[in-house]
């Protein structure tokens, strides 16, 4: 989240779209209700289905799954057409005034530089013109037809009310009602925020949906202010922490880029990954990239990493350029028999990954699988699953008992970037030990084997620093936390030019902030973003419980540690005008007083933008320091464009001749069938969770009181559709897609309504995905037997929320 949970109370208008906060984030919803009580905030819920969130919001607007970009595109069009945008903010803090390169164009759904064969864009043409001295050209009057603002206006002028209404199935009145209510926050003293969750990320255009919302927030001046921002209500307790520490194929801890084959030397890699900007006012903070990367390598290989061996750069595995190794790719390769071993730690892919049928078939091809969890689940017991003959499955499966969260000490980051330390309350039952200890012990055994017998490329294994146990040989999370924070490996002197101060640090002292990291290998930091979670003297800031909240905005700066550098709201410099006076004095997040910022930890100490020599633009992490209306970073285009889901009800995309997102990867094993606009599967289907169960249900299905409240799989069907198909409430039905089918109970409800899309009636149904065959016995199997193996173009986040099914009586 750019802001955090308590900050929701500061908002004047909350758009809940792509999330069901009341059911899945009840305490976040408490803050949303407090915004309504304290400052009369308008709560809007936009969701295909009327849910418990809608029951408590001011109004609910149903839209067809997979059409979020059309809906938001219409809002951009409305904001610009009705002049609701925040002029001062857009001019100074976004790249609206930049001039787009001449040979960039957009025609009929495709941007310039598209290669249909590889389904990839060559982004060479998506550039912004620069002056001779490398500083971007700007037309502050925003009249130049090639300026970003005009290109944006022209791009979204196609999203007229009629077109959007016919795509999304939302009536024009509802559209205007939402647009008007939300765009009213485009004024200095009002703040609007958006809460989204998997409802947005589970689409082939997921990243672009979120980008569209960030464009809206930039236009309305809601980014970086209290009660604003784009807030992801994520689903797992430490999903923010696991993303920061990058258990992901494409990044290293601290969002550092994973090296690829072509970058065979450290120098080449650093050159490619370190952006530089000629504009003195752009902080371009990522220019410090080399310091972070070298410090990371030092944290892995410690004294074995030297300048000579490029700090062990060659020991890191390299990806092939342009290749991807996401969960879907893993199971695709596993299905081909190329994957022999699998670690499945605290996860249940047999229920929660798309096209679960293919996943379960793939698991049978494994030689061995190591599971670490607190409960058994469908993945570990796949060989006992329905339609599987154990005699034919050669996989050796280990299921190691793990400690639950209150049985181990450690830190957990909530999605508001608060890293909170938690203490060990009790011993775990039986032989269960923390996952950390299992990891340490397994790796220690592997290191011993390689030390004794050698093997292929043993250097990275042998040189890995791996002494993270206490004197009793048990996992010491504090030692690891300090290693993540980072140490000075030599006595170093840090002098601060403007403050003219010199501080020296002893060897072995903790790094107080990532500003002190060096690129010569004299400092180590497991994750530069987390550097600063300890003070130089070793005080663990994550365990702080200070209740002071001087600004009254609920920042609580002394409660736990918020990365980066305890900044509670990102891009908070944008909450002030160019001279450093807060736009909204009532909610003062930051103010330039005398010669320093007062309030939240500022985005960098530099004076405000108006000070030409030392002042910096607010978006310090961006290369040119300004909010990106024109965002060339995305793989499928600088401006988000509506594309239909991979499997949708329409034969072609009403907006352009490109039916689906041109940049997504298409999997084509024989189990990856797709049935678009197929009368055998006429209904749009979406999946979601329910309050009583959590994610794959592998935690909550074992608890009798929760299972009693939601015992088995159900499909929610609108009354009109049910009457049409003669399905009665509570009747057993079969929901089938081209990939698989599942039996469940029909829940006939008023909360799903048919949509009129492109003139014809489209029905929508929905199923929860929390069930699996293992428990309760004889219960329903997993919904994900229906979902397609396709994901977002940038992140490969699977498209669970929009595919086509048929519902038939048993």
């Amino acid at each position, binding site marked *: 989240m750019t802001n955090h949970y308590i900050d929701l109370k500061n908002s004047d208008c909350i758009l809940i779209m792509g999330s069901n906060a009341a059911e899945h984030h009840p305490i976040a919803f408490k803050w949303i209700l407090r915004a309504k009580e304290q400052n009369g905030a308008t709560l809007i819920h936009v969701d295909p289905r009327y849910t418990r969130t809608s029951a408590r919001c001011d109004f609910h607007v149903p839209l067809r799954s997979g059409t979020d970009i059309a809906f938001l595109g219409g809002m951009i069009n409305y904001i610009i057409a009705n002049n609701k945008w925040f002029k001062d903010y857009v001019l100074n803090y976004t790249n609206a005034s930049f001039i787009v390169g001449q040979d960039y164009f957009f025609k009929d759904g495709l941007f310039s530089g598209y290669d249909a064969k590889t389904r990839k864009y060559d982004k060479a043409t998506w550039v912004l013109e620069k002056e001779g001295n490398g500083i971007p050209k700007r037309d502050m009057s925003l009249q130049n037809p090639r300026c970003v603002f005009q290109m944006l206006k022209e791009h979204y002028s196609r999203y007229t009310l009629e077109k959007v209404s016919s795509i999304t199935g939302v009536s024009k009145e509802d559209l205007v009602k939402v647009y008007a209510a939300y765009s009213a926050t485009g004024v200095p003293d009002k703040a609007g925020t958006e809460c989204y969750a998997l409802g947005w990320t589970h689409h082939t255009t997921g990243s672009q949906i979120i980008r569209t919302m960030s464009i809206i927030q930039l236009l309305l001046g809601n980014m970086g202010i209290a009660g604003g921002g784009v807030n992801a209500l994520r689903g797992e307790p430490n999903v923010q922490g696991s993303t920061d520490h990058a258990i992901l194929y494409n990044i290293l801890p601290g969002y550092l880029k994973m090296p690829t084959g072509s970058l065979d030397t450290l120098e080449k890699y650093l050159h490619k990954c370190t952006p530089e900007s000629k504009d003195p006012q752009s902080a371009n903070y990522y220019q410090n990239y080399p310091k972070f990367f070298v410090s990371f390598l030092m944290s892995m290989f410690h004294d074995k990493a030297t300048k000579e061996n490029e700090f062990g750069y060659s020991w890191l595995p390299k990806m092939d350029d342009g290749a991807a190794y996401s969960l879907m790719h893993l199971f695709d390769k596993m299905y081909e028999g190329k994957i022999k071993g699998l670690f499945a730690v605290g996860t249940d892919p047999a229920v929660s990954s798309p096209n679960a049928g293919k996943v379960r078939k793939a698991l049978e091809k494994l030689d061995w699988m190591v599971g670490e969890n607190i409960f058994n689940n469908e993945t570990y017991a796949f060989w006992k699953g329905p339609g599987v003959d154990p005699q034919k499955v050669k996989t050796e499966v280990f299921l190691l008992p793990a400690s639950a969260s209150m049985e181990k000490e450690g830190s957990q980051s909530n999605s508001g970037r608060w890293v909170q330390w938690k*203490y060990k309350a009790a011993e775990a039952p039986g032989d269960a030990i923390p996952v950390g200890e299992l990891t340490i012990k397994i790796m220690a055994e592997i290191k011993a084997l390689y030390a004794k017998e050698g093997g292929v490329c043993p250097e990275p294994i042998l040189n890995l620093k791996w002494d993270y146990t206490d004197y009793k040989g048990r996992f010491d999370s504090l030692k690891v936390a300090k290693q993540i924070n980072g140490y000075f490996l030599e006595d170093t002197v840090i002098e601060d030019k403007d403050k003219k101060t010199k501080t020296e640090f002893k060897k072995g002292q903790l790094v107080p902030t990532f500003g002190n990291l060096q690129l010569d290998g004299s400092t180590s930091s497991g994750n530069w973003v987390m550097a600063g979670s300890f003070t130089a003297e070793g005080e663990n800031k994550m*365990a702080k*419980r200070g*209740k*002071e909240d001087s600004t009254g905005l609920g920042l609580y700066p002394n409660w736990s540690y918020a990365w980066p550098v305890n900044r509670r709201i990102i891009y908070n410099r944008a909450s002030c005008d160019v001279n450093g006076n807060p736009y909204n004095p009532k909610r003062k997040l930051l103010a330039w007083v005398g010669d320093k910022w007062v309030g939240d930890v500022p985005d960098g100490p530099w004076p405000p933008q108006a000070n030409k020599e030392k002042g910096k633009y607010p978006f310090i992490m961006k290369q040119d320091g300004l909010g990106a209306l024109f965002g060339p970073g995305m793989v499928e285009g600088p401006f988000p464009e509506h594309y239909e889901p991979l499997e949708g009800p329409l034969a072609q995309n009403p907006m352009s001749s490109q039916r689906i997102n041109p940049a997504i990867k298409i999997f084509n094993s024989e189990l990856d069938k797709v049935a678009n606009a197929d009368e055998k599967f006429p209904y749009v289907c979406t999946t979601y969770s329910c309050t009583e169960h959590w994610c794959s249900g592998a935690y909550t299905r074992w608890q009798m009181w929760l299972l009693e409240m939601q015992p088995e799989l159900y499909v929610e069907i609108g009354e009109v559709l049910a009457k049409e198909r003669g399905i009665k409430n509570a009747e057993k039905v079969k929901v089938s897609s081209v990939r698989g089918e599942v039996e469940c109970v029909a829940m006939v409800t008023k909360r799903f309504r048919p949509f009129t899309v492109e003139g014809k009636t489209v029905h929508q149904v929905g199923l929860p995905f929390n069930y699996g065959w293992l428990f309760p016995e004889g219960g329903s199997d997993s919904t994900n037997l229906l979902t397609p193996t396709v994901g977002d173009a940038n992140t490969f986040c699977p498209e669970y929320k929009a595919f086509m099914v048929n519902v038939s009586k048993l």
Partner: protein
Amino acid sequence: MKKKSDNISSMQIIMERAIEKNPHNSNVIKAFSPIFIVRNQLMENLRLKKMDSFCFDEVKFRQGVPLIKQGSLFQKDDPWKDIVVELVKSAKGAFPNLRKDWECIESAAVNGNISIDDYLRAVPETEGVVNDWAAKVQASPAAVNIVLRQLARIILEARLKDIAKVIQGIDWQKGYCPICGTHPVIAQIQEKIGHRYLYCPQCSYKWHFSRVICPYCEHHGQQGMDFFFIEDNERESVFACDHCKRYLITLNQATNLNDYNLDVSAISLIHLDFIMQEKGFLPMAVCEWNIFQGNEVERQG
């Protein structure tokens, strides 16, 4: 405001319920009940003059300086004389065997050679003043102490409303009372959302304090903050800090379904005091009823 008799009768109901719940402490409760009754009566008809100007320094307050250290909470013309007379009258009933002391104190109060001010200014560390008073008045220090403490308590409690207004809404994160600097004698954890409120025996002020930090030595509770409770009655527990060896009786999960009085609750749980002192802990606030063995008392906290 409840009618006069109402207030007294509700106090009686609370006392009866306390005795009913803790029969083994009934004689202590009965002993102190006249004091409570008279205190309530005095609270009824005591009209204290408004405090004149009070130089309140918020910065110092935020750093932990209580009001009593920033200025005098007592007025010259507070009717302390007739308060003492009333107190002594009820004390005669409460503690008959100290009859001699009460008479001396009463006579001393009547002919005025007791000066209250230096006692009141000395709160909360009043030991010195009490001892030399006891000598001057030839009464036992215990008796003198009871009268003076109750005197200060009545004045502060009567004036509490407009004293508390001064510090309204200012965050107080210390374990001792923001008004008179005394440590709490009993804590109360609310039922629904388990906020902990500390209760000051000297001025009956109640303030919110963290659950996992020791109010006495502000040691961070993760390792040291244990609590003891009786097996089938988690409601009455005692929080103890290994760091400073102090304990605090805690009414766990109290709601406002029935009205209650924290002084009475503190007295009716002195068996917990006794147990904890045997375990080598000391109470955070020493009051008339919660110290048993004379000798250990000297050991400094």
